[in-house]
């Protein structure tokens, strides 16, 4: 009688143990799945961060190039007024008509630069310009993207 009871208890215990093992196994599998999902998501976030950093660096680089171009444009403008001790006032007295023509042309070019800076589309001529005689000297980097300044 006692042996039978012990046997039944043993079998029941073993059964319960197996059920517990199964349950543990299911929990572990679920955990494993969650961890794998988390790793995939983390990888996605890292990849996105990497792309963001690259985009920020690229954008900063573009902005720095632009600011350097601005400095150069202003220097070039100053040079045009003062090159070889040039005095625009004296020149205007000596060659009034010629200087008037030059500053009117420069005014038109400068106005075009403002239009382009505000987002106007380039004309085909502006895009094609590769020679110094074809460019807008007020803002060549903006107006003529295909022009490479001579060294």
């Amino acid at each position, binding site marked *: 009688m006692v042996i039978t009871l012990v046997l039944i208890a043993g079998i029941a215990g073993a059964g319960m143990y197996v059920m517990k093992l199964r349950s543990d196994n299911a929990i572990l599998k679920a955990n494993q799945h969650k961890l794998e999902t988390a790793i995939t998501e983390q990888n996605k976030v890292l990849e996105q961060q990497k792309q963001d950093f690259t*985009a*920020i660096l690229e*954008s900063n680089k*573009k*902005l720095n190039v*632009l*600011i350097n171009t*601005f400095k150069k*444009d*202003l220097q070039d*403008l*100053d040079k045009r*007024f003062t090159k070889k001790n040039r*005095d*625009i*006032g004296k020149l*205007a*007295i000596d060659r*009034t008509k010629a*200087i*008037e023509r030059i*500053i*009117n042309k*420069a*005014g*038109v070019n*400068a*106005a075009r*630069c*403002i*239009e*382009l*800076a*505000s*987002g*106007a*589309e380039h004309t085909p001529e502006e895009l094609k310009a590769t020679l110094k005689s074809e460019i807008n000297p*007020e*803002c060549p980097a*903006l107006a003529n993207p295909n022009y490479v300044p001579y060294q």
Partner: protein
Amino acid sequence: MYHINKIFALAIIILLTGCSIGGEKKIKIFSVEKPREKLDYPMPTALQLEELKWIIITSENAQEVFAKLEAAGIDPVLFGVTDKDYQVLSRNFAQIRQKLQETNNLLEEYKKYYEPEEKK
């Protein structure tokens, strides 16, 4: 009488437990990530500037210039700047243009970063 009591007891049991058959439904709360609406402003319209004419006036050509203005039916008056101020004006305009370009560029970069075009 015994049967009536049994039926009555059974009816009470059903009455008291009836609502719990099937159990209370659990409320499920789930969150759906909804991206913020895009602002999607169009880029500002480009400027179209009007042309203006510069007239150089010196002590020598002043009379001739005013006479030409009168002949053309334009009031014989000019708003002048000196050669030095003309250079300042040129620099100022160049700086305004650069600021405009910088601001437009920043706007484009922000738009590109925060509102990238969706891949089709």
